[in-house]
Each structure stands twice: as C-alpha cells, then as structure tokens.
C-alpha cells in the first residue's frame, strides 16, 4: 500500500512538474528585454519618493484631493448616479455631499472616532475588485457578462421602520497573550500528541512542503493558529472518507470511490452538538445545543456550525464570528475552526435609526463595507467577555475521556510529521500589507462633458448595465459586522441587516456618523 502510494505520488509529482514546466514555457514576459530598463531606475524611484515625502500636501490640497476622490468614488459606485450635463455640476453635488457628511459628523461631536478605515485607494476591496473585473473582462471575455447581476437595488424605507436612535457595544479583536498555550490546549484536548511549534513567519502558520493536506493521504493532522486579521485557529485532518474509500492506481490516477457507509450514522446529531460544545468550551466560548446547526450530506459528512453571540446582546444577534466542526462518514473529526482572538468591549456607542440605515444602504460610501453576509438560523451565546481569560489555564482534564468527547485522533505511526504549528503573536515581524496608494481615478471628459469611462473593446466584452430595482425594506435586524481598520485591526461593530419579507439584502454598519473615520 505504501509502495503504491509512493509510486502514485512520484507519478503525480512528475505530472505536476510537467504541468508547471508547460506553464513556465508559456511565460508572457518571453519577449520582454529587461536590459532596456533604466539602470538608475531604483535610485530614481528613491529620489522621487524622497522628494514627494519632503513636500507634504497642504490642508487645502488634501481637502481638494478628498473631494476629487469622493467624486470619482461616487461616480464609480453608483451606476445610476444622476449626472448633470457638466462636470462642474457633478462636482458641486458631490462637494455638497462631502461637506454635508462632514458637518453631520462634526455636529454629532459626542461620538469620538474609534478607528479609521482604509480609503478606497489604499489597497483592499475596491482597488482589488476593480482589477479583477479588468482581468476577467480580458481573460474571460464575453463569459463575464453571464456572471454579472442583471440588477442592483435601491432601498426604500417601509412604513414600519423606526426613526429612533439607540446604542450598542463595539468590540475589538485583540491578539491573545499566549497563542502557543491556547493552541496547545486545543491539541491536548484533541489528543494530538505533538507539541505546538512556531511557524516560519510571524503571521503565516504552517510549512506544508512535507504534508499534502488534500492529497487523499489520511493522517497528519494540522492544527494551526493565525494571528492576522480577526485571528483564528483551524484543524485539518486529511481523511479518505471525506473524499471516498478506495484509490485506483491505474496509470497513476488517484480516484476516490464511493464509500459504502450508512449515511448520517456517525456522529449522531446530539453527539455532534455535544462535541461542539465541549471543544469550544476549551477556547472560552459557550454554546447551547439549540444554537448549533448540524447538517449531513449524502456522502455522510457531518457539519456543525454556530456563530458566537455577544454577552451584552440578547436575542438573535449575528456576530460574524463563526465556529465549525466537520466529521467524515466514519465519525472521525476531520476539520474544525474557531476564533483565536480576545474580544474587548470598547463600550456603548450611539446607533442610527432604522430609517437612516436605509439611506446609508444606498450610500456608496457605506456599501464599501459589503452587506452580503450569510445569515444562519441558529445563534449561540457567547460566554461573558471577562471569562475569556480562562482559556489560558491549560487543557481540560478528563474531557477527552468522556462519552461524547471527540475520538482520539489516530496519528500515522510510520511517518509522523509536524502536527501543530503556531505563529507567535508576541512580537510580530511579518510584513504588513503595503499601503499602496493610487491616484484618484480621473473623470474622463470629452468637450467638458462627463463621459462613461467604461472601455468597450468590442461587443463581445460589453458588460450590461444593471437594472435598478426598488426594494421596500420592511424590517431590520441588528447583527455585528467585522470591519478592518486602516492598520489591519479588526473591529466588531453593530450592523443592520435589511430584510424585505423573508429575503435578506444589504447589511450596513449601524454606528452613528463620526465613529468610523474615513
């Protein structure tokens, strides 16, 4: 068996090498002569950057730049933006909107700015998304059009919506004081015997050159913790039964075959919930059985999922903090993931009314946050924030011997590999995401009139302009949304989920103006 696997592996590696070689042979830079570049390119770049840094932009210049950026942003994000016949008219409208917004924030001066989000040109969603569109339109051509939505929404406030403001708590996700101990605790509980070790990078986790998590080879559990973003841990144990039960070695092909399993046999739904509750209790989060969704698919794979609730909130409040476990058809735990950050309550902040949330959902500035969260029916209750420190107390003694604890994980004895990896959070030295700045997109004009900047190479690449549909929002539900600030720190802020009947639409931050800086 091992020989066959080894043989298959070598064939597969050989095929992979050939594939990579074929890709490499198609190098698009083949005709590019790098020697034609300026020999002083790097020196010139340094000089230019130094020069720019020594001449900071004036305050008036910054305001003008912001206005121009907002104009460009509004134009890009609102396909049905009502344009005047001239650029100046658009500028005037946008400028009023900008200063109007600024005034609201100033008037609500009791709201301190808690954090500042990255601007649209500072690297994340907008710039990347647009680039994807550009690439897709080139690479996929007309096929892209079929993927595009045929419409977009204009939200209208239903008569039942409230105009009352309120207040809700905001949380920050902070690094754990002892991530190694946190991960070791989980490893001990799961019966993983190898010790946690530090990953190669401060925020990158495991080096997987010697393990292939999805190569159909069972064994080699990987328990990993990441300190970046919202911070999370996850367990992966490659298991044949998640793909199939047999491997064909004909011509080096690796093909899973259907498992002769009794679907939905192991674990039972009750046992899955019990294991779920026990596992995440080790990490400081408490769940009740009714909060956990368990599902089984036709292959016998069992999945359990829940979102953490927040201690200060009662009722359904989706937190954006997901926890999950997955078992293969033989009842073996094959995957799990949870939160590896500390939730810190930043206090109570004013929230806007439901009516105002509708206006915000139509505002491109707030669409930046993305309102397309996935909702679940079940919501778990999170343990009090103050209790979170208990996770550093070590493994739960005896938990793995209880009837409903997860079965000990069988490690391969022939080729023990690195199991648990840990990335130090105490002194992160990894490279942060560079804050790549781009110039505001200039508005194309033709004879002084604004023109559509969308390039149309030919009819094949023509993208449809979405139709605008009016949606009357009849109720909203409060949830929490993760937002990354300009420094990469993650915040959990109250957000309204818009509903029209049973259909969920956009989700927008609910904090009053001024709490988030732009």
């Amino acid at each position: 068996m091992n020989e066959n696997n080894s043989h298959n592996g070598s064939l597969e590696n050989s095929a992979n090498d050939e594939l990579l070689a074929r890709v490499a042979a198609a190098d698009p830079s083949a005709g590019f002569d790098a020697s034609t570049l300026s020999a002083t390119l790097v020196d010139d770049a340094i000089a230019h950057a130094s020069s720019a840094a020594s001449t900071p932009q004036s305050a008036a210049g910054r305001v003008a730049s912001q206005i121009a950026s907002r104009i460009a942003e509004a134009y890009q994000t609102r396909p049905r933006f009502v344009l005047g016949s001239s650029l100046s008219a658009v500028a005037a409208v946008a400028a009023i909107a900008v200063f109007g917004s600024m005034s609201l924030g100033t008037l609500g001066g009791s709201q301190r700015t808690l954090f500042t989000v990255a601007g649209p040109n500072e690297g994340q969603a907008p710039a990347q998304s647009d680039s994807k569109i550009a690439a897709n339109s080139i690479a996929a051509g007309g096929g892209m059009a079929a993927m595009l939505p045929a419409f977009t929404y204009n939200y209208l406030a239903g008569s039942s919506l409230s105009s009352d403001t309120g207040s809700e708590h905001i949380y920050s996700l902070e690094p754990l004081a002892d991530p190694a101990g946190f991960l070791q605790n989980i490893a001990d509980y799961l019966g993983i015997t190898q010790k946690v070790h530090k990953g190669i990078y401060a925020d990158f986790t495991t080096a997987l050159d010697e393990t292939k998590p999805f190569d159909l080879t069972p064994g080699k559990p990987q328990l990993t913790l990441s300190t970046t973003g919202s911070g999370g841990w996850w367990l992966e144990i490659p298991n044949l039964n998640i793909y199939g039960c047999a491997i064909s070695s004909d011509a080096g092909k690796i093909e899973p075959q259907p498992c002769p399993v009794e679907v939905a046999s192991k674990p039972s739904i009750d046992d899955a919930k019990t294991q779920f509750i026990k596992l995440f209790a080790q990490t400081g989060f408490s769940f009740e059985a009714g909060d956990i969704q368990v599902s089984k698919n036709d292959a016998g794979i069992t999945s359990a999922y829940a979102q953490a609730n927040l201690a200060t909130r009662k009722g359904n409040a989706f937190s954006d903090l997901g926890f999950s476990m997955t078992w293969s058809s033989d009842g073996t735990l094959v995957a799990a993931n949870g939160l590896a950050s500390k939730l810190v309550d930043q206090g109570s902040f004013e929230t806007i009314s439901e009516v105002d949330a509708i206006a915000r959902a139509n505002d491109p500035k707030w669409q930046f946050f993305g309102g397309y969260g996935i909702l679940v029916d079940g919501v778990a209750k999170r343990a009090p924030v103050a209790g979170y420190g208990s996770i550093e107390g070590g493994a739960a003694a005896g938990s793995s011997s209880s009837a409903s604890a997860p079965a000990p994980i069988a490690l391969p004895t022939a080729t023990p590999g690195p199991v648990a990896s840990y990335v130090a959070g105490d002194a992160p030295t990894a490279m942060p995401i560079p804050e790549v700045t781009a110039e505001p997109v200039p508005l194309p004009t033709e004879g002084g009139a604004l023109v559509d900047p969308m390039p149309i190479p030919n009819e094949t690449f023509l993208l449809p302009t979405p139709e605008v549909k009016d949606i009357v929002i009849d109720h909203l539900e409060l949830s929490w949304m993760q937002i990354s600030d300009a420094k990469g720190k993650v915040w959990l802020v109250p957000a309204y989920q818009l509903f029209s009947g049973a259909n969920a639409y956009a989700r927008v931050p609910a904090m009053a103006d001024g709490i988030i800086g732009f």
Partner: protein
Amino acid sequence: MTPDEFSALYRQHQTPIAKFLARRVEFSEVEDLCSEVFEIAWSKRVDAVAGFELPWLYRIAGFVVANARRRATTRNRFIASLTPPDHSPSAESIAVADIALAQAWAKLGAAERATLALVAFEGLRVEEAAAALGISANAVSIRLHRARTKLAELLKD
C-alpha cells in the same frame, strides 16, 4: 537604511520585478510601474523582512498591477465587490505560446492563477508565494494543489 544601502540591496531585484510586471501588463507600462514598485518599497522599507525582500516586492507589485488595471478600467463597485482581486497574467498573454493552456488558464479562478503564476513564472517556493500573496503557506499549498489538479483536468478536455 540609507538610499545607497537600499539601492544596493534592491537593485538586484529590478529584473525579476520587471518580468513580473511584463507578464501582467503591457510592456510599455513596465518601466513606470517598476519605478512605482520601488518608490513604494522605499517608503515602506521598514516593513520588509530580511531575506524575503523579493517576495515582499512581488506583493507590492501585485498591488501596483491591481491599481494599474483599476485605473484602466472602472466598474461599478457593486459588481466589482462580488469578485476577488486578480493580478495574474491574462490568458491572452499566455495564448501567444500555448493556446490550449490559455483556454484552460482562463477557466481557473483568480486566486488559482495568481498562485500558479508565482510558482511557475516567478519560481517561488510555497513560503515565498505565501509572503507575496499575503496569505498563509497552508493556503498557498492548498490553492496550488487545487490549481494544478484543475488545470490538468482542463487540459485533458
């Protein structure tokens, strides 16, 4: 780090960065974008990790390519927000050498193309590709495996 020290350390990476750009943008744009990469690198030099300067530059170059494409093509953000970033070589650029590969390449996901390109074209190891993409080595390994498998299947068709 003085300008001279920076220049001495980074000048050696000018050609690989230029080729990275040449695979993703028009040749005529390479020099300007290459300058932009090194301008940003200079201004963010404190963020570089010793020994991983080149993957770090690739990461910056990826942002620069994405921004350049953004400047070239604007779309409404709602539509754009539905898709992940993509700064990998286009299928058209690959079609010059291998049409069948180009057709398969176009059917890969953006993340798969980006990962495969860094390994096949830039010759990066998994850890280096992870640094260039700003994701974990675990994720790169998984993406790479999927991309290879998918590409191989597509090439059979």
